[in-house]
């Protein structure tokens, strides 16, 4: 095992790690926001909204992330230039990048899984607490904002931690659409130096550390919210 290549490649490794982490952060934050909408649509939406949200979750949970990513990057990506004027528009430099497609598909995918978790949690909030809120004269929106959603998130917290780790483990897929994430950097190092395992070991250690950090922060977060048993 030789690790002397790290000294030559560390700036590249750092940018790769940064790309990986930003993909994770973007998909988790935006995915969570979409997931809240999807979960409420399923729990308290009308029949049309409910069916749409159900269909969304079934589709994104039932197909591999790799296919979704390629569907967006190759499929939608090849259809985009057909739209007149898009090449001249402000957004073209972003729309051209693999990173954009990776971020969008990871977000949509994470939203589907997270919506399922939140749906269960919303249903698990004790009825009495919602009734108490209503008895205080809370409007549905206030009730949701102050009681229903926060309680549901608290209930779902351990599962959310797990989902974020799963999402982290999905990020190396981005390299298949030309994103220079940490895994892609490792692949480049493997091609340059002909080392087979060492770059993979470095990436693995990085992922283990991030997983440990996520697990720790969620344990900390859970400890902040007292829960009566």
């Amino acid at each position, binding site marked *: 095992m030789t690790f002397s290549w790290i000294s030559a490649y560390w700036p590249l490794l750092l940018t790769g790690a940064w790309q990986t982490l930003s993909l994770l952060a973007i998909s988790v934050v935006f995915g969570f926001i979409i997931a809240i909408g999807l979960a409420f649509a399923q729990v308290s939406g009308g029949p049309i909204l409910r069916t749409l949200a159900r269909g969304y979750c079934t589709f994104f*949970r039932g*197909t591999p992330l790799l296919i979704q990513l390629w*569907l967006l990057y190759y*499929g*939608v990506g*090849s259809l985009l230039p057909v739209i007149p004027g898009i090449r001249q528009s402000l957004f073209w430099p972003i729309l051209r990048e693999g990173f954009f497609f990776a971020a969008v598909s990871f977000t949509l995918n994470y939203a589907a899984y997270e919506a399922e978790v939140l749906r269960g949690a919303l249903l698990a909030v004790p009825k009495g607490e919602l009734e108490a809120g209503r008895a205080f004269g809370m409007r549905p929106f206030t009730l949701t904002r102050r009681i229903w959603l926060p309680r549901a998130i608290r209930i779902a917290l351990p599962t959310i931690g797990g989902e974020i780790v799963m999402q982290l*483990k999905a990020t190396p897929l981005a390299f298949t659409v030309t994103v220079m994430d940490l895994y892609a950097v490792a692949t480049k190092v493997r091609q340059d130096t002909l080392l*087979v*395992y060492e770059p993979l070991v470095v990436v693995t250690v990085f*992922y283990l550390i991030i997983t440990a950090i996520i697990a720790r922060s969620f344990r900390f977060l859970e400890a902040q919210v007292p829960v009566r048993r």
Partner: protein
Amino acid sequence: MATSSQGILDLLSPYPPGWGGVLLTGAASTVAISAGAFLIGLLLGTGGALGKLSGIRPLRLLLELYTTTVRAVPELILIVGLYYAGMDGLNRLLAALSLPAFELNGFAVAVAVLGFVQGAYMTEVLRGAILAIPVGQIEAAKAFGMGPQLRFRRIILPALLPNALPGLANLWMSVTKDSALVAVVGYQELALATRLAGASTKHYFIFFLASAFIYLALTLVSNALFNLLERRVRRGQPKLA
């Protein structure tokens, strides 16, 4: 879109000018890889669960290492790493035995690698399922004088199935989807077949959508089958109110 609906049907037709046949062959090898990996995982998982519960300390530590690393490392890295490590290791072993090196069949490598990954998850699922069996049932079996083998076959196995089945169903779903990752190391299953079809016709969108729906159909059918299976293994159990 430039293509008419007639064009789409032509593209997806199962006979040579269309690519439907290629996609379906890809789907068949996806199912074959997943099934092989699932079975290997089941074997490794049963061994792993029994080993973890056996109380032999070094064995337990070894299995602990196996399950934690496999579950913490991204699947793609595992697949790529094991792919090369497996090939390399086998060829070195063959060299040590002074046998000629050979190129492994991609199918066997895919099944072995995914099976190894599945085994780690199965170990945990089965361990939990065994622990959830009421101790009294096993004690009763012992009191009747059943040996360990008979006890496993008659009591532990039927009692752990209802507990393990939901977890096993999840693992089956994840292996059908993980098998798409094998495309990255170049074995042709559904995902790679789709990319090939897309690349040679430039109709990426249609083909990826089609293969997404093939995966979806696979998921929905297996979901239904697992539900039937669960009803079968739960027969005779009291229903929750």
